């Protein structure tokens, strides 16, 4: 009787013992990792039948709407307090901080920029801007969309609104036009006519993201959205996903994208892009402050958001 009770106790302790052994192995590095991690579903000993019985509905891809949401989150709002790419741009340009200081923004900024222009990080180039009202910022947001989907237009409108909202605090407070232009090779890549057209818009701040290549086109790949020099989100296939109820009636139809990938319009991934911001009229020349911004966080944010937008967990190993 005693023996049987003890056996039960010992059996009960099995899990504790196993935990103990595992912990011991980590602490003393006496056991191999393969032993301590074996049987946890890693499956790296080779293929298993476990990967076969996955419902077909689980691995379809991502909806177009979710892609847009991911882009919106990472570009405008940020996630869990993270710095959005737009905020990074503004931080890099320093505009937000100057305004928060509550200083005489116009003069301070121009003076600061004038100082900056003397440094080697700033160049001067007569871009032929149209004369502008120095009391106001101009906001213009020009997403370049190349898409086969009608709802991309909705994205454009919504995103534009969101960006305006984000930048609203900057309006009427500085004599600065931001012309954010991203070009891995440097140089000039837009016409005066284009600039004048942008400046003629009613909005108050010009943010323009561009690449010399323009919108990429590739016969094998389609783009959900192309946004100047920001990473493109592309897909290989779009499928119509029809879900059925238990008796075979159609419940829902959605566009699902498969083979989603990111395309970096830069020779080197995660490179720093120069950003040109208009520094105002100094002497007789237009001046531009050059800064640089990395898209590392933005890309990682997109990766996480796209991944986490899936309904299911990643399948297979």
């Amino acid at each position, binding site marked *: 009787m005693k023996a049987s009770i003890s056996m039960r106790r010992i059996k009960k302790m099995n899990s504790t013992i196993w935990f103990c052994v595992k912990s*011991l192995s980590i602490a003393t590095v006496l056991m191999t990792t393969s032993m301590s991690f074996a049987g946890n579903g890693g499956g790296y000993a080779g293929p298993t039948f476990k990967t076969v019985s996955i419902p077909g509905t689980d691995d379809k891809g991502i909806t177009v709407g979710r892609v847009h949401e991911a882009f919106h989150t990472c570009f405008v709002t940020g*996630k869990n307090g993270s*710095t959005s790419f737009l905020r990074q741009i503004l931080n890099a340009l320093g505009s937000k901080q100057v305004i928060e200081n509550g200083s005489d923004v116009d003069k301070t900024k121009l003076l600061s920029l004038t100082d900056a222009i003397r440094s080697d990080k700033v160049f001067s180039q007569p871009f032929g801007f149209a004369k502008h009202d120095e009391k106001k910022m101009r906001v213009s947001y020009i997403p370049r969309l190349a898409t086969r989907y009608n709802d991309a237009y909705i994205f454009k409108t919504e995103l534009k609104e969101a960006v305006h909202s984000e930048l609203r605090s900057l309006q009427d407070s500085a004599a600065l036009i931001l012309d954010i232009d991203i070009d891995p090779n440097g140089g000039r890549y837009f016409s005066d006519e284009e600039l004048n057209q942008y400046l003629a818009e009613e909005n108050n701040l010009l943010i323009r993201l561009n690449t010399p290549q323009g919108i990429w086109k590739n016969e094998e790949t389609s783009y959900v959205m192309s946004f100047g020099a920001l990473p493109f989100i592309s897909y290989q296939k779009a499928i119509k996903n029809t879900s059925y109820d238990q008796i075979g009636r159609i419940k829902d139809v959605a566009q699902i994208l498969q083979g989603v990938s990111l395309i970096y319009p830069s020779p080197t*991934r995660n490179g720093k892009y120069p950003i040109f911001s208009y520094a105002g009229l100094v002497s007789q020349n237009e001046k531009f402050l050059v800064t640089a911004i990395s898209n590392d966080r933005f890309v990682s944010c997109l990766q996480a958001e*796209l991944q986490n937008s899936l309904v299911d967990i990643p399948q297979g190993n």
Partner: protein
Amino acid sequence: MNLLNGPLIFFFTLVWVLLNQGYAQAELLHEVCNILGPLKEHKSLQMTLPNKAIRLIEIKDIYDQELDLEKRAAKEIFNLYVSGVPNIGLAVERCLDSNELINKQDFLYTLNSTFIDESFKKIKNAQSPRLVLFQQILEKKFKQGLPVVQVLTPTFVDKNLEFKAGFHRGLGSLVFNIDRIPASEWFIVFIHELLHSLDSELAIDSEKYANSKIPALLSQLEIQGRTPSSPELAEIEAWFKAGLGRGLFTEYRTWVPTLLIYRE
């Protein structure tokens, strides 16, 4: 007597193990927090900015420095991980949680890109013939776009995710749960998942298997209590084969080159 000794031995072993483990984790936490030290210091400097009259150029430099420090710290953490330190993701998150100055999410994003970049660098610098060929194929493939890759630390890990790593058949994305992958396996797991992204058969089978008409057909057959016609049977069979193709068979297809590369 023996029966009493057993539990006592296990009890003391457990205490000893827990003490050791606790000490090791505390040491790791301390080390990771030290790595993040310069970044924390830099962030505290930023907190003083609004009270100072500073020039724009200085602000820009300060943000540049922040990103550089983040990258440096992330690279050190990657090196620590590949040197064999376990549970690094958990330690990083704990340290970030105890530190209000550093934006946790921002740092985790940088950590993600650093893990990916450093791993690609390692593949790129490899000399073995198969890895060189693999690198060439990747480069060609990546001209069409890089896959979505996410390195998971505990914040991002789905409770149901038991895999060390995974390749999503539909999205084509790759995830790596670093706290579940021992450092000794990291590169082989990384290469294995990348190989999945090169498997064209997998994409075809995944698409076929994603055809939801077949589950609906199976449901109808069950309700109507009839046997499938020959064309229906052929469709069902193709669907099942595609299911195997996107599951078991793709693992065989991918493990063959994985092992060949591993041997080199």
